[in-house]
């Protein structure tokens, strides 16, 4: 049965090991936003042994390119973007301490294997619920690559941000399991 968890970031190995595909998690605390362009830069930094713009240990990255904020608001609409574009970068970040990723859509086997090997999880947020999810982001600040516009890295603070565990650290995949349960075979 799917369980409900309330977790604070950064995530620990223990937090991760308590999660199973299909569980609902409400995340609170600091997370970082990044899309493909920012991921590429992070991986380049790691490869060149340079310092990253934020602490990767226990971090959660949210794959999102928000709309511009209206005056007086921290961020605009901010739902997840499709995750496969990050597949070639995520395993390296996971190896260096990343514990959680939030996006939408399937991940490849390399990402699933990395989650298992280094204890990390992939969460799904509701795609297209940008207005609702943007409201749960209480603070946002660009901390790197401002020139990338919506793709810049932002440090955000969220409160009870609702996500579902898609790939856990045990090799389970909600997309496969959920679908198998409701598929009607001829």
């Amino acid at each position: 049965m799917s369980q409900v968890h309330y977790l604070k970031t950064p995530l620990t190995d223990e937090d991760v090991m308590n999660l199973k595909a299909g569980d609902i998690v409400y995340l609170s605390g600091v997370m970082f936003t990044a899309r493909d362009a920012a991921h590429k830069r992070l991986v380049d930094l790691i490869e060149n042994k340079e310092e990253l713009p934020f602490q990767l240990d226990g971090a959660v990255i949210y794959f999102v390119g928000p709309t511009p904020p209206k005056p007086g608001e921290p961020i605009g609409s901010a739902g997840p973007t499709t995750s496969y574009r990050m597949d070639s970068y995520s395993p390296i970040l996971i190896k260096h301490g990343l514990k959680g990723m939030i996006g939408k859509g399937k991940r490849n086997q390399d990402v699933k294997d990395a989650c298992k090997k280094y204890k990390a999880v992939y969460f799904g947020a509701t795609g297209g619920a940008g207005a609702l999810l943007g409201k749960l982001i209480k603070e946002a600040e660009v901390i790197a690559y401002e020139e990338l516009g919506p793709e810049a890295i932002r440090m955000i603070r969220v409160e009870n941000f609702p996500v579902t565990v898609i790939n856990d650290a045990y090799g389970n995949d909600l997309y496969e399991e959920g679908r198998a349960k409701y598929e009607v075979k001829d």
Partner: protein
Amino acid sequence: MREIAYEDIVKAVKNMVLHTATNLPEDALKKLKEAHEKEKSPVAKKVLEQLLENAEIARTEKRPLCQDTGLAVYFVKLGQDVRITGGLLKDAINEGTEQGYIEGYLRASTCDCFTRENLKDVIGYNLPAIIHLDLVEGDKLEIAYAAKGGGSENVSRARVLAPAQGRDGVIEFVKSVISEAGPNPCPPIIVGVGIGGTFEKAAISSKYALFREAGEPHPDPAVAEFEKELLYELNKLGIGAMGMGGTETVLAVHVEKHPCHIASLPVSVNVQCHSSRHNHITL
């Protein structure tokens, strides 16, 4: 000759863009509510609940429904008895688009194909719009608009089948496209299918099919029957809202059919996510 002023087109387009970003059209909303009622999976039901809540927040607080505010796609029907004064029709549509996207704090999502440089300071904010123009009878100007997100475009496919593959071949192809897409296009989705014509005609028809009111059957009863059959087949896939498994994956299937060459059977599948931001104006 009836005259329509450039500035009037700019203004009407801008207002349509602004309204559509934050107001989910009635037809899509109705379909989402129906799906929420029918859904058997509790996880998917919860997602559908969030989508309805999201639509409500977007409408009342004027926040964009989704952060991907799309490329602006238009189907324009220009009556032959209309003359546009003060500028070009395409420029007016582009200008209205740009103004709407800037004023609404919407995202500029156009970029160069290879350098990936955002074109907002090169061509214009979220420009150029994609404009399909048709000349028709009469003295009206009809502009239909969609804010088309990337997630659902990315899983869309076109193929030219062999005539012998026939109706069953089309069903099989559409099923394979939606199955492979899985969670990526933000289900529940609306599926546009263009059948026949040439390669590009099928693709454009599949997009045009998405401009119909969600769930409105094709006027030709045989085509409408085919839509029903496809809907049934696709929902058997069990993908569910956001791909987490469920009974309600596809909200509607719209098919557009066109005569084709004796040697070919072109098919195109264009996917529309649940954030079906469509609208139209008539001037």
